[in-house]
């Protein structure tokens, strides 16, 4: 098992270097730069000399390979420098958003698991009954409805409903407070995006649970378990569901990693100051340093998540770890 873990860790390094090369050079292909945007982006008359001073100050007029070397050294020493747009340390800027994004991702995952596994199992066990059809309709709707649209509907629904009930329209808070500072404020802000994204997330996981469980329920060892007189609850929970979880764990892991940096539109709808919003802003502002750091962070999250998924595989399926 330890050899397996070491092999997986060794594979992470070239993945990260490859991602670093891609993000660094792709960012430079986008026309324009942060100084031009900062000085000329509001239509102001400004001397070209001032734009050049800004470029020198930020180091973006240096030879590209020197900039690349700086970036890679910075990455492997965890020194990402400062945001070109705000001047704040990148670690500080990302740290703030990471906390929020992580909480939303965890809450959405909990929502998704609570919905997906029971519904997927019910759908498989009661295949082709009205229950199955109802669950499938619910899950297809979840896949079809964009979570940002669902988010907008949630906010509008809250405004209209509370206005109708109390005469005063209420909407979720638009600025974040950590859960240990103000738990009520925190939950009343984050529960709605968690539900909006968790629903879509659960829809995918529900369908995966259903199909995986249906496949497992047709296996010989399930027939054997039933033949030896085990009660159905044990057959499902101990023998079928655990083995059906392999693809579901993969889906949950990949979706979780996606939620960490991919909630671009949902974060804007709920005005969440998360990693997705920061991503969009830094690309729009041509903040190379920030974008590079964020891409590397997301790649790292994906790589680590995949690593954890692989470990789960090994735990769930002995054939993997013994091979």
């Amino acid at each position: 098992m330890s050899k397996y873990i070491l092999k997986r860790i060794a594979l992470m390094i070239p993945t990260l270097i490859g991602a670093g090369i891609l993000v660094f050079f792709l960012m430079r292909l986008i026309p324009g730069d942060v100084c031009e945007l900062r000085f000329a982006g509001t239509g102001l008359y400004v001397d070209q000399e001032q734009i050049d001073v800004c470029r020198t100050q930020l180091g973006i007029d240096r030879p590209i390979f020197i900039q690349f070397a700086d970036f890679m050294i910075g990455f492997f020493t965890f020194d990402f420098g400062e945001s070109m747009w705000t001047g704040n340390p990148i670690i500080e800027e990302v740290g703030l958003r990471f906390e929020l994004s992580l909480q939303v991702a965890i809450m959405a995952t909990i929502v998704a698991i609570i919905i997906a596994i029971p519904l997927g199992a019910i759908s498989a066990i009661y295949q082709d009954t009205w229950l199955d059809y109802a669950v499938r309709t619910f899950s297809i709707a979840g896949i079809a409805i964009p979570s940002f649209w669902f988010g907008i509907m949630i906010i509008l629904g809250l405004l209209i409903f509370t206005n109708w009930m109390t005469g005063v329209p209420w909407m979720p808070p638009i600025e974040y407070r950590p859960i240990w500072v103000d738990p009520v404020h925190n939950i009343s802000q984050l529960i709605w995006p968690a539900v909006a994204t968790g629903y879509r997330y659960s829809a995918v996981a529900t369908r995966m649970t259903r199909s995986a469980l249906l496949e497992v329920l047709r296996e010989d060892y399930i027939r054997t378990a039933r033949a030896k007189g085990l009660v159905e609850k044990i057959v499902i929970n101990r023998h079928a569901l655990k083995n059906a979880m392999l693809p579901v764990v993969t889906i949950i892991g990949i979706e979780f990693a996606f939620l960490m940096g991919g909630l671009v539109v949902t974060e804007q709808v709920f005005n969440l100051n998360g990693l997705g919003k920061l991503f969009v802003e830094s690309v729009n502002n041509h903040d190379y340093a920030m974008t590079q750091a964020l891409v590397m962070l997301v790649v790292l999250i994906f790589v680590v998540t995949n690593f954890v998924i692989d470990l789960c595989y090994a735990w769930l399926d002995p054939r993997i770890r013994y091979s």
Partner: protein
Amino acid sequence: MLKQTGRLALAAAVGFGLMTGAGAAKAETPKSGGILNFVVGSNIPSFDGHQETTFGMIHPIRPFYSLLIRVNPQNPSDPTDFECDLCEGAVPTPTNDGKTYTFKLRKGVKFHDGTPLTSADIKATMDKIIFPPEGVPSARKAFFRAVTSVDTPDDHTVVFNLKFPTASFIPALATPFNFVYAKKDLDEHGYEWHKSNVNGTGPFTFVQSQPGAFVEGKKYAGYHFEGRPYLDGFKAIAAPKMAVRLQAIRGDRAAIEFRGFPPKARDDLVKALGDKITVQESDWNCVLLATPNQQRESMADKRVRQALTLGVDRWGGSKYLSQIAIVKTVGGVMFPSHPLAATKEELVKLKGYGEDIEAARAEAKKLLADAGQSDLKVDFSNRGVDQPYKVVGTWLVDQWRKIGVDTAQRVQPSGPFYDTLRKKKDFDVSADFNCQSVINPIADMTKFLGSAGNNYANFEDPKLEAIYAKIEQEGDAAKLRELVREYETRALSEEASGIITLWWYKINPYRSYVKGWKIAPSHYLAQHLDQIWLDK
């Protein structure tokens, strides 16, 4: 019938809001207390006013700082009404044939850290802006080309020496980005310190900020305007998405957004909240242009440029486009409410400003035929921002289609758009704009000069430059007005080197409990918040 009644009610509510917005602040006595929450439609960059150019910095940071002089917040619509902020008495008139301005400073003003304000702080600040040391960028250095030196004969006197007399100096000085910093901070911490630290003499002291989320300030007890600010504090919440800002006001998470909303958003808010919403509206010191690139063969022919301006129905656009976009006013090179701006009688003499659009379009088609461009295809570069760029851009495509011009609109995000405009220059016509803070007519109209750093039409017009040179030197108001008309006719009509579409129109719907705020013709002005109070 019901729909019509609803519309009438909405119109009445807007009217009520407009009336109360204009009159309420005059009639009521300000109350102290409360926290003002407002939303900012942009991400908040660094805190350094001398380097930044966006309202995303002005709205949350301006309340921490003072200026030497400022636009009068009680009369911000008047483009000539300035008052002393850190200086004392009235804004000084120049001496030495208009080449020397002497400011006396208020005594007893202190920075938030307790450091007393002296003339050395003003000099250090203005030197940083006008004569930045090597390697230090300054976004407004170009505003002060006339200034040769800043002197401090004593601790409470500042003297600006100019190379030549210019009417653009006072408006440039009142620019809201010219935050006064403490010399001590610049000396001890360097020129980058203010990017993420605050120490001013403004009405509010810095409490905290969360990058990308909010900035919070609290009342400064030692503020130099006695009895102000009225608010206990404020929180500026970044909300780049318009729908969030709108809902935030509707759900009372924020009371106001200072930049402005499109007409539909105003109507939605008024419809939902009735008299809990007040609306103020104003002409906006921003003009949306279509800039023909004279490096392109087709656009080098002035008949083609004239045809393009003739094809635009400005008066019709003003009526219909203003219902969906933040543009409204038909105008020339000057801010429409300025005394030097063209009257309607003067405007209609310009090509493309006549009221008979069919006649204008017939003339446009003839000009295109004469130029051998009857099948003209135009690559129109536009900025990927809805209001007003994409809305007006789509309207322009339709306007030019009516004179037989086939226009392909190329919409790009701001970065690539500016790269196309400033570096690649591979467009036939580009959307462009001139959006300034303080109305500084003589400076603002340089936008139309081929030599201006922010003119992207790629042309030279010595005659236009010569007219501008006379404008700069002219002291007589009547003669100045004539020269401005000559300049305007040359730029917009004879050469059509710049094509003005419509001037922007500012609409601010906000919670009616916010009092004391008067709309200014720019979203950069009157943002120190010391005049605002809450009637809750």
